[in-house]
């Protein structure tokens, strides 16, 4: 691959490949100021928070489990059942709220783990260079071309996923390579700056140099990476759940679509069964992407006021 690879992130949107110029001291108040004035950041955050609150709070207001048969079968949305019921009389809204919960768990854990692995490999490869870099780079390239979902299907089918965190773990294990690439490239160019040399000369250990001198200079980029990984993990989990390989004892948005298709909700016209879960995923992932674009404008002064 040529160096242009680093410009392309998961969404196909270019990520800032040049490291942010080192700034002295924190500029948190500055960032907050611009973030609060950026409509994309605020809008995205509001959508995400709304879903998060819904997922966290809604399940507490009922004494039924999401899979219990509580109402008349196949009834359209009403005051009692906001999103209607399934062919078995399960409350779709209840399933929906619980599904959002597991969506966030998968996103946070899967995205977090992928970010952690990608950053570790990227930092070590970029900072160490030499043979370590060669080996890690090879590993990264291999995982990069390996179709992640196909591997996950095989793993899920054999291992039998029982819980959402376990699913997140597997997803995280196979979605880090582009992060490693980007972080490596940035570390590479930061490594030879004077302030890093100075830290090294003053006897700082390599880990401390990475943590205190290099990572803070790309913290904004790392944060945006995590957002994209979050969205990717959510989509991946929904895909696996839809195929029927996800955890079956927990409700997830993908599983809702799976059962809707499986019990022919399309032919029966039960649109309230399959529209909300997909809409929620689209809204959450879309809000994340939009937020990411907004954050890019916040962190990168060149893009502001466009």
């Amino acid at each position, binding site marked *: *691959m040529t160096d242009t690879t680093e*410009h392309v992130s998961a969404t196909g949107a270019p990520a800032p490949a040049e490291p942010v110029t080192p700034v002295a001291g924190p500029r948190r108040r500055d960032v907050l100021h611009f973030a609060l004035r950026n409509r994309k950041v605020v809008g995205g955050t509001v959508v995400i928070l709304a879903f998060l609150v819904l997922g966290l709070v809604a399940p507490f207001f009922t004494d039924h489990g999401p899979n219990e048969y509580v109402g008349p079968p196949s009834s359209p949305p009403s005051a009692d059942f906001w999103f209607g019921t399934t062919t078995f009389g399960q409350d779709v809204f209840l399933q929906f709220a619980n599904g959002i919960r597991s969506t966030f768990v998968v996103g946070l854990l899967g995205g977090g783990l992928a970010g952690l692995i990608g950053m570790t490999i990227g930092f070590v490869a970029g900072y160490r260079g030499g043979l370590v870099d060669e080996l890690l780079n*090879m590993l990264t390239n291999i995982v990069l071309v390996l179709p992640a979902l196909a*591997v996950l*299907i095989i793993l899920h089918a054999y*291992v039998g996923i029982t819980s959402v965190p376990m699913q997140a773990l597997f997803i995280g294990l196979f979605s880090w390579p582009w992060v490693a690439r980007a972080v490596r490239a940035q570390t590479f160019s930061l490594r030879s700056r004077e302030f890093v040399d100075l830290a090294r000369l003053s006897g700082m250990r390599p880990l401390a140099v990475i943590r205190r001198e290099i990572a803070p200079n790309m913290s904004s980029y790392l944060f945006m990476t995590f957002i994209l990984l979050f969205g990717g993990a959510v989509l991946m989990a*929904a895909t696996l759940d839809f195929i029927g390989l996800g955890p079956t004892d927990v409700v997830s948005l993908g599983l809702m679509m799976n059962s809707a298709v499986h019990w022919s909700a399309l032919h029966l016209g039960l649109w309230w069964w399959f529209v909300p879960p*997909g809409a929620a995923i689209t809204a959450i992932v879309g809000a994340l*992407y939009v937020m990411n674009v907004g954050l890019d404008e916040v962190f990168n002064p060149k893009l502001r006021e466009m």
Partner: protein
Amino acid sequence: MRRYFGRKLAIYALTFVVAVTLNWLIPRFMPGDPVLRMLTRTSVSNPEAIAPMRAYYENVFGLDVPLWKQYLKYWVELFQGNLGVSVWLFPAPVADVIVDAVPYTLALLLPSILLSWWAGNKVGALAARRKWLDNTALPVSYALTATPYMWLGILLAWGLGIVAGLFPVAGGYSFEMRPEWSWAFVGSLAQHWFLPFLSLFLVAFGGWAIGMRNLIIYELEADYANYLAALGAPRRLIRRYAFRNALLPQLTGLALQLGVLVAGALVTEIVFAYPGLGHLILQAIQNQDFFLLQGVFLFIVIGVLAANFLIDIVYVLVDPRTRTGMQGAT
């Protein structure tokens, strides 16, 4: 250039080895006993049948010889094209089952990938620096690229298929027909093909449009663009140069997105019960047909690697820098 292709091929060969090894490792070293699981899932009612079935499976997996021999045997059988026997379509060999399904998947994937890439790039380039188009095309693109493939498929199947009744929503061709070379059959194929194609096309389109729009803006700020503008070159010309430069990262992006696109095709096929590889995966999972599942996995890996290599060749053709060996050996 030889170095460039050499390194690429080495990576792909290694990836293939890793994929095959994973395929071999997972059933053998995962917690639990896959043979036992297969036996329990097939729910044999007669207890006397379990022992011979167990012996059969152990023999098929080759579990009775040392590990390194099992591994070697696996490779040898792979090169003989022996991927095992399908349980679902017993006694059809897995390789045959897959070969029957591959044309359907390719017929979906190739047009949708190429057309969405082309159209997305065009629209993205138009949207850059054009306020009204940017304000309409960009939000739509973001919504599309955030949409899970299967959901768009479900919506299209429901809206255009069931409610409007314009298109059939299941199968690769009409259930009343048998495969033959006739206009009626080809028409039926095309009718069944259109909705899955459309949903794949739309989701992928959004991502390319966003990518191209951002790249063009980035390119228009580059020195060469400013220089051309200062010389008084027409805007059209500058944009054309920017477009050609922006195509390169988009091409790399295509290689990176292949896995996601294939995954999208798999679930779309499941939604439409389209008889490609995705449908096979679903059947394999529901019927506990592990040989079939692993065969499909290997096929997907080989396909993705081959496509990656094709893109590498195209990259060399369109980017002169890789040819002179100045760049590209990463």
